[in-house]
């Protein structure tokens, strides 16, 4: 095989997936089961147990790290070629030099815990550790993400006051923005001396009429009328409602008839509505619900009761922060501009060309697979739709820990995604390649992120 600029390590059989991927469904229930026990065990004040001493917590940790012989391992073994079965376990990842899962799992967690327990946290250091992945079991992902997104200040002492401030701010937003015009008029009336007629038996007679101010009646067509604005907003609210109901229909957390799922949906809706009202320039765009879902899930599953209860407020601010880097992707007018989604996709293309020219040529020139067909969803939705939920949480660990912002890492991960299936892509034509890329095959996330990281150094 003639290789042009594809490094040898990349071509080792280690990295390619077999042509018949194992049924992902086996894995999913267990993987989805795991997060639930984490949430359920939240209040069972589960102490962060060092990953190496696993067998004790095994019942709750279906996700237990590799040393423990856990059922998913046997069911799902993607790579048969390498000597050691590399499993699709959404697990802690190998560091750059060491691909041995066992040892690294035990490195990351204590490191994270020690960093988090300091009085003033060194966020740069935290980023470096978090880039390797945050272990699922210890329930610290919520805190780490909040620190990475800048929601929590590095100084632990400031946390209570910061949190209280932000949470009350969110509450004010909700009170101001989520109220319907009837409520507003009622409050305005209360503030004036006007007393509404009571339905008492004493008086009979004609009811007194009162003037209304500023054209504030329900059928008003005036631009400044709260009623008119309400009816115009109701379209957006309906769309948000529809999208929230469709978010992750396979997860109990988000969907179903339980009151837990309903309250989660309510929270998602509130956050999106408040965001849409506070940002009239961008409002709500389909897809924002998908970016919001993992954030809310992680924060709500925080074992710390206090954090879990205020998950909605925390998620709102972190969502704003996360989206601030990606807003331009959602603005249609900016599509063709330098900061828009098209130019980002072009950058991805360039990146692929740099690292694997043969593949790039085959995809874009020979088979004419326009990157917009697949990369659009990858980039705007931050890869939440391409992998199962637990894997996407891991990818987000890496994305969020990038000090330059998630965009760069995202492009590298996308490039790595392409490179990992290069054999199949090179062998395919337009139809099969497109199909493959739009339904990205399940893969070992550790590998993927390792490759993505390598691309940084080779860049």
């Amino acid at each position, binding site marked *: 095989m003639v290789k042009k600029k594809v490094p040898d390590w990349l071509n080792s059989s280690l990295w390619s997936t077999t042509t018949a991927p194992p049924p992902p469904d086996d894995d999913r229930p267990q993987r989805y089961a795991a997060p639930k026990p984490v949430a359920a065990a939240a209040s069972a004040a589960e102490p962060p147990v060092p990953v190496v001493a696993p067998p004790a917590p095994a019942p709750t940790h279906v996700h237990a790290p590799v040393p423990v012989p856990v059922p998913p391992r046997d069911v799902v073994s993607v790579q048969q070629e390498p000597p050691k079965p590399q499993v699709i376990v959404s697990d802690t990842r190998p560091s750059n030099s060491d691909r041995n899962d066992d040892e690294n799992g035990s490195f990351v967690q204590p490191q994270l815990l020690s960093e988090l327990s300091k009085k003033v946290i060194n966020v740069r250091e935290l980023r470096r550790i978090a880039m390797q992945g945050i272990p699922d079991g210890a329930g610290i992902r919520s805190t780490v993400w909040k620190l990475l997104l800048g929601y929590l200040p590095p100084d632990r002492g400031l946390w209570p006051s910061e949190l209280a401030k932000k949470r009350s701010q969110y509450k004010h937003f909700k009170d101001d923005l989520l109220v*319907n*015009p*009837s*409520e507003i*008029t*009622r409050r305005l*009336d209360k503030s004036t001396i*006007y007393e*509404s*007629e*009571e*339905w*008492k*038996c004493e*008086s*009979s*007679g*004609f*009811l*007194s*009429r*009162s*003037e*209304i101010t500023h*054209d504030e*009646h*329900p*059928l*008003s*067509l005036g631009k400044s009328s709260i009623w008119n604005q309400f*009816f115009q907003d109701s379209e957006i609210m309906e769309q948000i409602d529809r999208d929230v109901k469709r978010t992750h229909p396979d997860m109990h957390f988000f969907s179903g008839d339980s009151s837990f799922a309903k309250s989660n949906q309510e929270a998602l809706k509130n956050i999106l509505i408040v965001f849409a009202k506070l940002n009239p320039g961008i409002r709500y765009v389909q897809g924002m619900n998908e970016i919001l879902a993992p954030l809310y899930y992680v924060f709500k599953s925080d074992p710390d009761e206090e954090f879990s209860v205020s998950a909605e407020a925390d998620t709102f601010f972190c969502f704003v922060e996360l989206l601030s880097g990606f807003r331009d992707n959602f603005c249609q007018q900016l599509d063709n501009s330098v900061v828009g989604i098209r130019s980002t996709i072009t950058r991805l293309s360039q990146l692929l060309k740099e690292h694997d020219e043969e593949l790039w040529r085959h995809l874009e020139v020979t088979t004419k697979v326009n990157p917009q067909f697949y990369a659009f969803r990858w980039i705007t939705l931050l890869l939440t739709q391409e992998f199962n939920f637990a894997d996407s949480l891991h990818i987000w660990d890496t994305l969020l820990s990038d000090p330059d912002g998630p965009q760069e890492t995202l492009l590298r991960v996308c490039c790595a995604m392409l490179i990992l299936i290069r054999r199949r892509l090179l062998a395919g034509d337009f139809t099969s390649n497109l199909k493959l890329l739009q339904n990205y095959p399940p893969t070992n996330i550790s590998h993927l992120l390792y490759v993505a990281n390598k691309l940084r150094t080779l860049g």
Partner: protein
Amino acid sequence: MVLVLAIGDLHIPHRASDLPQKFKSMLVPGKIQHIICTGNLSIKEVHDYLKSLCPDLHVTRGEYDEDSRYPETKTLTIGQFKLGICHGHQVIPWGDLDSLAMLQRQLDVDILVTGHTHQFKAYKHEGGVVINPGSATGAYSSFTFDVNPSFVLMDIDGLRVVVYVYELIDGEVKVDKIDFKKTATTRLAH
């Protein structure tokens, strides 16, 4: 927050050709949840027009209605309130508030909506409230030619009702509002 439109006595096409333009521009679909019509539309086209504003339409029979299948009276419950509709030509003397109060007690409703007099009225007595939305087209009545087009929009929110009165006076739409609350234990329940 339920918006209920109370409208009636349009007398289209006999006494008026259409609703005033200013009213029509305000009445758009999608805002109103229920329509209560006191009667005397009088033809099917008007019924269809009202139906296009809101699918939940309740009409009672007025003496000039061409569709004889409308009921004489109707009651419905919206939120915490019971509403009753009747055209009013059946209640003699026409427009007499005591007789209407009798009808209201008979129907056992909190708010009675009637028409026929083509005059807006909102009256409270110990049995409840009587609202007459007037004539939406300003058609002449049996009493007088001097009729201002008017209709009523009620905003029912829990135990409180805000009644917005829309009147066309000298070519301009004037909106007033009336506010009343119902206490939870007002009627002798049965």
